[in-house]
C-alpha cells in the first residue's frame, strides 16, 4: 500500500509460493531436458543447448498461460482467489524464463557470425513473405518487448505514477504478447514438430485462455447490462435483506450509472463502500472483513468499513455510502457516494451477534 515503496513486501506465504514456483519451473525444465535428450540420443547427436532453449521457452509460455487463466478463473470461482494474490510473482517468473530463453537463443543461434546478433536476428532469415518459412523469431522478439515493458512497470511505483486505469490499460498489452507467443511457437517449433501432441497442447492453451476471458467477460457484461434496469428515483436503492449477506462478507449491488457498491456485514453492523479498490480497481465486495478491515481479494489492500480509510500508516481512502433499513426489513443504500474519508451511516441489526 502507498506510504512508501518496497521492492517486494515479503511474508511467509509469498516466500513459500515463490519457492514452489521456482521448484516447479526447475522440475519442468529438468523433465523436459531428460525426455528430450533421451529421445534425441537414439537419433541425432543430442543438442542440449537447443533443448534448454526450448525448455525455457515452453516454461515461460506455460507460466504465462497459467497467469492469464488465473484472472478470469477468479471471476468465475472465488476458490482461485489465493492464486490471484501472488499472480504478479508468477508474471515476474515468466519474464525471467523468457529472458533466459531469449538471451540463450540470441547468442546460440545468432552470436557466432560476423553480424551483430540483434542484426542477425532480423536479416538471417529474409523469408518475410513466406508462411512456412516466416522468421518466427520476430513474433518472439515483439512478445519479449511487451513482457519487458510489463516487468519494468510492474512495481507499485509505476501503478501510482501512471494511475490505476492507465497502468491496467498498459498491462492489457500482455494479451497481445500471448498472441505473439502462440504465433512464435506455431511458426517456429510447430513447423518441424512430428508429434500431434504439441499442436494439440497449443490449441488447448489458446482455447483455455481465450475461452475463460470471453466467458468471464460476457458474464460481467450481462451483469452490467442488467444495471440499466436499476432505478433509484429517490436516491436510495433497494439492495437486499440483512440475512442475504454472509458474516464478514458482502453483497455487490449495481448502481444506476454503472458503478457497483459493496454492502458488507460485520456481525450486527452493516456498511456500504464503493466496490473498486484504490490499488488496481479490484472487486472489494468479493473480499472479506479480516481483522476488522475490508480486505481486497486481489492484493490484500485494507480499508476500515466505517469510513473507507486504510489503517495507519497507510493513507488510501475509498468512498462510503449511507444505509437505511426499511420497515419491511430491506437494506437501502444511498446512491450518492459520501466524500472520501467521511463515515457512512451504517445499520445495526437487532438480535444479531455483534
Amino acid at each position, binding site marked *: 500500500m502507498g506510504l512508501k515503496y518496497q521492492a517486494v513486501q515479503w511474508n511467509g506465504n509469498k516466500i513459500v509460493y515463490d519457492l514452489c514456483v521456482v521448484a516447479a519451473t526447475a522440475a519442468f525444465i529438468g523433465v523436459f531436458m531428460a525426455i528430450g535428450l533421451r529421445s534425441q540420443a537414439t537419433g541425432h547427436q543430442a543438442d542440449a543447448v537447443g533443448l534448454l532453449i526450448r525448455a525455457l521457452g515452453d516454461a515461460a509460455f506455460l507460466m504465462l498461460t497459467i497467469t492469464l487463466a488465473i484472472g478470469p478463473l477468479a471471476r468465475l470461482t472465488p476458490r482461485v482467489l489465493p492464486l490471484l494474490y501472488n499472480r504478479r510473482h508468477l508474471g515476474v517468473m515468466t519474464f525471467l524464463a523468457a529472458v533466459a530463453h531469449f538471451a540463450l537463443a540470441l547468442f546460440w543461434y545468432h552470436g557466432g557470425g560476423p553480424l551483430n546478433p540483434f542484426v542477425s536476428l532480423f536479416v538471417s532469415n529474409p523469408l518475410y513473405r513466406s*508462411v512456412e518459412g516466416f522468421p518466427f523469431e520476430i513474433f518472439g522478439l515483439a512478445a519479449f518487448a511487451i513482457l519487458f515493458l510489463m516487468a519494468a512497470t510492474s512495481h507499485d511505483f509505476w501503478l501510482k505514477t501512471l494511475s490505476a486505469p492507465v497502468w491496467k490499460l498498459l498491462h*492489457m498489452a500482455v*494479451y497481445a504478447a500471448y*498472441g505473439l507467443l502462440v504465433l512464435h511457437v506455431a511458426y517456429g517449433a510447430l513447423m518441424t514438430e*512430428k508429434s500431434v501432441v504439441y499442436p494439440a497442447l497449443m490449441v488447448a492453451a*489458446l482455447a483455455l485462455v481465450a475461452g475463460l*476471458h470471453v466467458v468471464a467477460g460476457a458474464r460481467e*457484461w450481462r451483469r*452490467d447490462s442488467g444495471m440499466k434496469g436499476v432505478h433509484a428515483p429517490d436516491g436510495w436503492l433497494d439492495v437486499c435483506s440483512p440475512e442475504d449477506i454472509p458474516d464478514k462478507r458482502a453483497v455487490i449491488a449495481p448502481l444506476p450509472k454503472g458503478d457497483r457498491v459493496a454492502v458488507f456485514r460485520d456481525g450486527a453492523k452493516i456498511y456500504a463502500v464503493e466496490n473498486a479498490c484504490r490499488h488496481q*480497481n479490484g472487486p472489494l465486495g468479493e473480499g472479506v472483513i479480516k481483522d476488522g478491515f475490508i480486505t481486497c481479494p486481489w492484493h490484500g489492500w485494507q480499508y476500515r468499513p466505517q469510513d473507507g480509510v486504510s489503517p495507519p500508516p497507510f493513507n488510501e481512502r475509498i468512498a462510503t455510502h449511507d444505509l437505511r433499513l426499511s420497515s419491511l426489513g430491506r437494506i437501502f443504500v444511498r446512491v450518492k457516494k459520501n466524500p472520501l474519508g467521511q463515515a457512512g451511516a451504517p445499520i445495526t441489526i437487532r438480535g444479531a451477534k455483534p
Partner: protein
Amino acid sequence: MKRPQRRLHLMIWIVLAPTIAAGLALALWRAPPDLSAEPSSDLADIAVTGEAD
C-alpha cells in the same frame, strides 16, 4: 475493475482470440509434411551417390 475497463477487456478478447486462432490455423495448415518419414528413393540415391539422376 470499472465498467469501461471490463468492456474493453472483453472487446480485446473478442477481436484477439479469432486473430490468433487464424494465425495458428494457417501455420498448422502450411506446416511442411513430416520430415522424419522414410526418405524417397531419389533422396536415398543422392545420399549414396552424392548426385541426383
